């Protein structure tokens, strides 16, 4: 996955650089390994590298009134840091994964990006006009959102027909438009209008910006919708709206559902920072068991689950999660986390908490078991690594050293989103994916 951003300012007196930097910072939670940005003014300038937005982009000012950018986890070997060049003078930021291109035979001997480039060039040569760009992405299958800028500095942004990946549109007064993965970007760099700050871009919809126009078009008619359920559990920021649904509301509902489905006789509720905090608060409100702060962090806030290897993940967890002993000593604890992938970090947390004197630990997970690898680019490891695919809840409790262990049910999760099950992609929990 990735966090993607596009800024189109009609008036060339504006410089989009700072807007790009702070906009990408607002998406940093969607990818912390690489950051990249391309500015389009009198010339095209690309800034990119490994590291956080602040480290890679914040100290090399450049100029341009149009800008696209991306933050990504897990840099692939030899892969170009996004925005990538799809053709000459055609740059694009993509969140998610394109799994097929109609009219092009995928070459398994080539990498993902090389295939995309070859597909584009074989179908559209070096044409980068709006119709060609729209044509190309209209042929793409999979779960993705994209923002592209062509040779004429026109911006085309859109969502794949399934709508797996989010994309929203915001504004900057009379001066321009902003397209981003999440609405929180608009709070940070957009116009502050005291109603929902961003407009949802619909599945299959594209938004085009040129010096003389800005319009919306339906590229493809979706057969069904398949909004990524994991956005609500973990990926998105709680202050964002995804598909017009406030993420925080879903997380609060998840906490309530967990309390109803899997109550525990306990003295204190503790959430694993940061994502699971709203789950824990709602669980506590629902059960009447007090919620407390159980951890203190050392150093920078990182999203440990998105680190590329086990050592990095554990490093992240151990630095992030120093247990506050006073909160747990002698107590029966309900420990709430958002999801379990391999279970290693959770085992570490349970161990640390018992070491600090917790009497009992009842683990509650704010999502169903993860049993499948995501074909749309969410960084879920291979199925042989997934603890939830192989072990039962009771067995997992034993493995991680907890007194009990319960997931949220799939129905409970769907209820919590307030959406219809058939609108959601819950493949990682069920192994059943929408047809591409």
């Amino acid at each position, binding site marked *: 996955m990735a966090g993607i951003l596009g800024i189109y300012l009609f008036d060339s007196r504006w410089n989009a650089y700072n807007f790009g930097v702070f906009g990408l910072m607002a998406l940093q939670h969607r990818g912390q390994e690489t950051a990249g940005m391309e500015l389009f003014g009198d010339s095209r300038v690309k800034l990119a590298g490994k590291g956080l937005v602040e480290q890679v982009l914040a100290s090399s000012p450049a100029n341009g009134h149009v800008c696209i950018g991306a933050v990504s986890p897990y840099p692939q070997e030899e892969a170009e840091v996004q925005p990538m060049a799809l053709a000459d003078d055609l740059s694009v930021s993509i969140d998610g994964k394109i799994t097929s291109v109609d009219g092009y035979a995928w070459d398994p001997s080539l990498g993902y990006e090389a295939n995309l480039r070859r597909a584009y060039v074989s179908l559209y040569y070096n044409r980068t006009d709006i119709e060609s760009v729209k044509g190309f992405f209209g042929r793409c299958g999979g779960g993705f959102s994209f923002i592209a800028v062509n040779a004429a500095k026109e911006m085309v942004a859109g969502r794949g027909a399934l709508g797996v990946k989010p994309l929203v549109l915001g*504004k900057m007064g009379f001066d*321009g438009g902003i397209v981003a993965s999440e609405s929180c970007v608009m709070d940070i760099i957009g116009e502050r209008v*005291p*109603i929902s700050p961003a407009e949802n871009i619909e599945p299959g919809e594209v938004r085009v910006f040129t010096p003389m*126009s800005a319009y919306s078009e339906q590229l493809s008619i979706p057969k069904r919708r398949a909004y990524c359920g994991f956005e609500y559990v973990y990926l998105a920021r709680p202050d964002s709206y995804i598909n017009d649904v406030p993420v925080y509301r879903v997380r609060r509902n998840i906490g309530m559902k967990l309390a109803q489905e899997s109550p525990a006789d306990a003295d204190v509720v503790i959430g694993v920072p940061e994502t699971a905090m709203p789950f824990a608060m709602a669980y506590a409100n629902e059960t009447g068991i007090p919620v407390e702060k159980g951890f203190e962090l050392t150093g920078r806030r990182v999203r440990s689950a998105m680190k590329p290897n086990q050592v990095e993940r554990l490093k992240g967890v151990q630095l992030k999660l120093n247990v506050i002993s006073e909160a747990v000593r002698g107590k029966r604890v309900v420990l709430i986390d958002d999801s379990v992938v391999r279970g290693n970090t959770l085992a570490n947390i349970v161990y640390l908490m018992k070491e600090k004197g917790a009497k009992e630990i009842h683990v509650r997970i704010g999502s169903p078991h993860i049993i499948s690898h995501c074909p749309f680019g969410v960084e879920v490891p291979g199925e042989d690594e997934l603890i939830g695919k192989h072990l039962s809840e009771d067995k997992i409790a034993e493995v991680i050293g907890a007194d009990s262990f319960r997931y949220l049910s799939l129905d409970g999760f769907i209820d919590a989103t307030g959406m219809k099950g058939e609108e959601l992609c819950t493949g990682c929990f069920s192994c059943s994916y929408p047809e591409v």
Partner: protein
Amino acid sequence: MKILLVGGAGREHAIALALKRSPTEPRISCFADLKNPGINKVVKETGGEFFLGSINDSAAIIRAAQKAGADFVFIGPEEPNFHGVPDRIEESGIKCIGAGRKVAELEMSKASMRDLQWKYRIPGRLWYKKFKTFEEALPYIQEYAESVALKPARQSGGKGVKVIEDFQVYLQEDKRKVKKEHAEMIVKEHMKDYDDIEYKLLIEERVWGPEYTVQCFTDGRTVVPMPAVQDNKHAFDGDLGLETGGMGSISCGMNLKWGVDDDRAIITEDECKRSADIVKQMIDAIQKETGQKYHGIAAGQMMLTSVWGPTIIEMYSRLGDPEAGNVMTALKTDLVEICEGIIEERLNAIKVEFEDVAVAVKAVCPEGYPDKRDLAKGHPVALDGPWDGILWASAEESEGAIRTGGSRVVECVGTGDTLPEASARAEELTRRVRLTDGWRTFHRKDIGSEKSLLRRIQLGSMARDIYTYRERKGLLGKRMIWVPGKGLVEVG
């Protein structure tokens, strides 16, 4: 009855159609700088004459009025008012509907308008500062200006206004830079051809809330409000993109209701009345100040803000365009009778009525509008089907062909029981307009749509929650700032 209408845009076409409906069966002539095909049709059908010339040339207009034997002249646009055309016409012995030079100051000078509003302590007054030169404004912009609207101090066809929200300190440098450059452009570009005004630049506090226009007939004694109309200034769908003269407008009932039989509305009836009262107070004040009687149209371009509730953004000395399309369509009373009432200062005796109907107006523009008008100009236009519901705007008829003038080419007027219905009708009409050389047009699909109405109703209710709280606390219009080391500073 013979009438000379001055002006050749969509607004004047709307006025011409309303005049034509009069049972007095007036003969309508027109004086404009372009031959508007729609007005020309009305002129031909009523046996009038079309005069071409500068709309600010009072001598030529008086000659035309005499030739047409006009009982009165109706001035459509604002520039003739700023040039004293109504004054000259009246002096020549011909009656005129149009704000005289002195009272038109309300629109012409945005600085004088605010001065007057503050002097008479009329509600809905924004905090402002006026400048004669860019250099004078520069230190202020650099040090104090945060979220502001930068405006040319003289009305210049609605162009040059820029609203910059400067709240996020991490983006302040970029925003200050653009503010500076824009302020300089206003003074040195937009205002350079106007020597009829002392102050060049106005900086006002930025406010938010739904905007609406309250247009009023006045004979100087009575002020009769028309239905509130909401214009859409952004060029593109979803309130995106450059500021235009107006891409289309909606109205329903007096207070922008969702539908004829619907309780949902963007503003309340009370807010509507208060807005009309503000316009009346402005008219009273300018008459008192100048000693001139106001005969014609005065309009408040309003916003429902959290600071004041109904708040003046700007004043108009004429009908708005495209707002005229809404009110002239809904007007039930004979417009000729109203004009006579204004001229004879007995407007109080006339019952001015409007149909309870939803009206949506959508402007169709050639690509290039609003900031690259040379590209938008000169394209041949075709209209398929009858002209009902079409207001011709920036379009010129010559030698049997119609070409674009560079601005909004036609305004499509849809009516219905609800705004979404009216909007859908207007949308159908837009499909009948095309440029035969293949140049692209654009218009706003979202004007009057359910989604856009819901957003505006929500925005209005948020502003209302805050201003009514202020009102209860006696804080309406007051702004208090604690300046550390200096103490409490109060504005308002």
